[in-house]
């Protein structure tokens, strides 16, 4: 296999990693506040189509990116309204969001299928670093969204771990009555978290339609939203591990379309004889393995999963 193909694989790993990292980071925020949002796939689709359309209209990838984030927040707001404010079942509402979001995206985008945007995100060759062999191309000559995702990851970690807001958010995810009687509004915290999470998913969707697979067709998201949901578990609800998991999952996503062309043998297995479909389920298999490890390792102490995840809260009810 050629050196270029290998570099290409790692470049794509970083990009796919960024895609699922952004979406999963949003889901992590929502879940740490106690709200499970299974609508990531739908929110990403809405972000992808709306970002693409704004990109066509304005010619500005940044305008498109932020518009997609706003649409994601709005769609996430639907989940917040139904499951946080009205207290409906989070699983049902989230699944409805995925199904409805995919459908709505197909409808909204029906007239732009096949169009090519003129302006896309371009790679930022970071001066001096981009020329380093291998490393330069993989890490320092990527589109700006990659670096933004790193900054967002650091910001989310900082807010969760080091600020009053983060403390309140984590508390809401562990015990809503405790947070409420401590004087925080559980509804505001959780709704805000879900909407911010939606913004992240929407932004991730636009990264797809404005850079990774420029254009809009139905099915663009192709299950990456579900990978993001799995990644939150794989990362044990922590931003740092989420980043590591994102690279791993990104690698399997990047490898999938390339596998057939890799004529090499690894551990006695001919790589191009492995079915890409099998590779596609690897993230989910890994997630289940991690889940089992977590429940074993944490058998004598509280699990890293937010204790109130999925439980609606109404103050006067018991």
């Amino acid at each position, binding site marked *: 296999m050629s050196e270029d193909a290998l570099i290409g694989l790692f470049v794509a790993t970083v990009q796919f990693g960024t895609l699922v990292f952004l979406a999963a980071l949003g889901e992590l925020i929502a879940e740490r506040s106690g709200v499970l949002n299974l609508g990531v796939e739908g929110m990403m689709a809405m972000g992808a189509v709306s970002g693409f359309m704004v990109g066509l209209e304005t010619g500005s990838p940044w305008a498109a990116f932020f518009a997609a984030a706003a649409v994601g927040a709005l769609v996430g707001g639907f989940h917040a309204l139904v499951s946080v404010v009205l207290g409906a079942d989070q699983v049902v509402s989230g699944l409805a969001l995925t199904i409805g979001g995919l459908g709505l995206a197909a409808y909204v985008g029906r007239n732009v299928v096949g169009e090519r945007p003129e302006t896309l995100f371009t790679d930022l060759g970071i001066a001096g670093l981009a020329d380093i062999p291998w490393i330069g191309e993989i890490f320092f000559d990527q589109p700006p969204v990659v670096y933004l995702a790193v900054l967002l990851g650091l910001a989310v970690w900082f807010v969760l771990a080091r600020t*009053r*807001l983060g*403390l309140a958010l984590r508390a809401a995810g562990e015990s809503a009555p405790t947070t409420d*009687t*401590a004087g925080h*509004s559980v509804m505001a915290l959780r709704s805000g978290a879900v909407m911010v999470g939606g913004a992240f998913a929407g932004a991730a969707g636009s990264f797809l339609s404005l850079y990774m697979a420029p254009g809009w067709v139905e099915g663009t998201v192709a299950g990456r939203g579900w990978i993001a949901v799995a990644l939150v578990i794989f990362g044990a609800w922590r931003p740092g591990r989420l980043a590591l998991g994102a690279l791993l999952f990104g690698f399997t996503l990047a490898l999938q379309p390339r596998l057939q062309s890799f004529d090499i043998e690894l551990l006695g297995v001919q790589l191009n004889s492995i079915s890409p479909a099998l590779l596609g389920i690897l993230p989910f298999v890994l997630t289940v393995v991690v889940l089992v490890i977590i429940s074993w390792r944490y058998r004598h102490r509280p699990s890293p999963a937010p*204790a109130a995840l999925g439980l609606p809260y109404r103050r006067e009810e018991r």
Partner: protein
Amino acid sequence: MASSDADHAVWLRGIEKRFPGVIACAGAELRVRPGTIHALLGENGAGKTTMVNVLAGVYRPDGGEVWVNGQRRFFQSPADAIAAGVGMVYQEFRLVPTLTVAENIVLGSAPRLLRSAEIEERVAELSAAYGMAADPTRPVWQLSMGERQRVEILKALWRNASVLVMDEPTAVLTPGEAAELGAALRAMADDGRSVIYISHKLDQVVAFCDEATVLRQGKTVATVDDLQDVDLTELAELMVGSSEGGYVDRPPDLEAGPEVLSLQGVSALNDRGLPALVDINMTVHSHEIVGIVGVSGNGQKELAEVINGLRRPTQGRVTVKQQDVTDASPGDRYRLGLAYVPEDRLGVGLAPKMSVVDNSIVRSYRLQRRGLMLVMAKCVKFCQGLVERFGVRTGRLNDPIAGLSGGNLQRLLLGRELAEQPAVLVAAQPTRGLDVQGVAAIQSHLVDQRSEGVGVLLISEDLDELLALSDRLLVMYEGRVVSELAPDVTPRSVIGEAMAGQVRA
């Protein structure tokens, strides 16, 4: 408004609060003077928790007025009540187990940016100032019940609450911890704060408190200006409207029958993976009540779980009616004749959202079916039988069981467990948190079961209860049975020493 507002730290006027199907408060009244400890008394379901939840902004009243420190308040949320100086220690603790002591204390009033070291230092200063030891860096899930309660109180003090409400704080405390709490509350009252203290333990109420308000069925039926002037029976009478109560007497001695439960060399770990039971040997015979004495947290919970198959022993054997059940499932043990009233009624014992009927048949559903189907009419009839026999006060049988008050939950749970004439009954804290009538009802059922030949293992924190009911007492300390005592001839001081681990050779 009225002229004397200013001399009340708290004035709840004509509070009304309805829940679906129940009137929890029907015009109840509560006045508390600054610098006093005020007891709020009443039987289970009288509306005490509802009253203080209105004061804490958790419940919005349907009618009535809330006055705090001379000002009328309209609380929209707990945050408003906190801002007005109300601090509350809830009946069920409000702590986040995964957060540290310091994080729990500052939650709600933390600085924008958290600097752990600084917060921990300030929390340590606060706990030193009030003599309430609590390591600020430890996560709360590692703490005992007594320590958790100190954290709750520190939380209120951190906010500088001028009114501190404590809802049944001693239900989970050992006698020593309760006495410490009394002293701490007095120090706060001397500081000019006022304390509202809810408890069913009247001796403690008389020892700690200055004044009292008695609720019955959502109404204030009496106020006592000086608790030193009343005696316990008078108070109990005010609460229930009649003078029954106290501990039931054990009928004359019975000859103990055959062995029905035994533990042989049983050891087990607790949830944190540390040894909780160490080489336990004990037997329970038919026609006897064996009491387990000990400060809570010395292995009682794990003991009940090991016997009932909810926790696997690392060593040893458990037998029921001489049959080895060490590896048997809880269901198999039940069918062999082992009944269990767990400490956690609404969680382990009963399923909160299931109906009264469903909860009453979960153990004996085999009796109510035809082929593969449950016969609903039979189920309802079975449930009605339990309700009548055990005097359960309940609304509609198809409503969720969570709506029942503590005493009624316990009556139903006990009734269900006794429905198939067990050989052994393990009862963990069966009267905790119950009012006088509830306690008497449950205790007399235990005594009746003993007369009928059941062997009862009674795990309780109430020493008086154990002394009144037990044929034998086993003292547990740090996971071991450290001594066996006879309840009628052993002085309390000796029992107390054994509970503290000081066994005389």
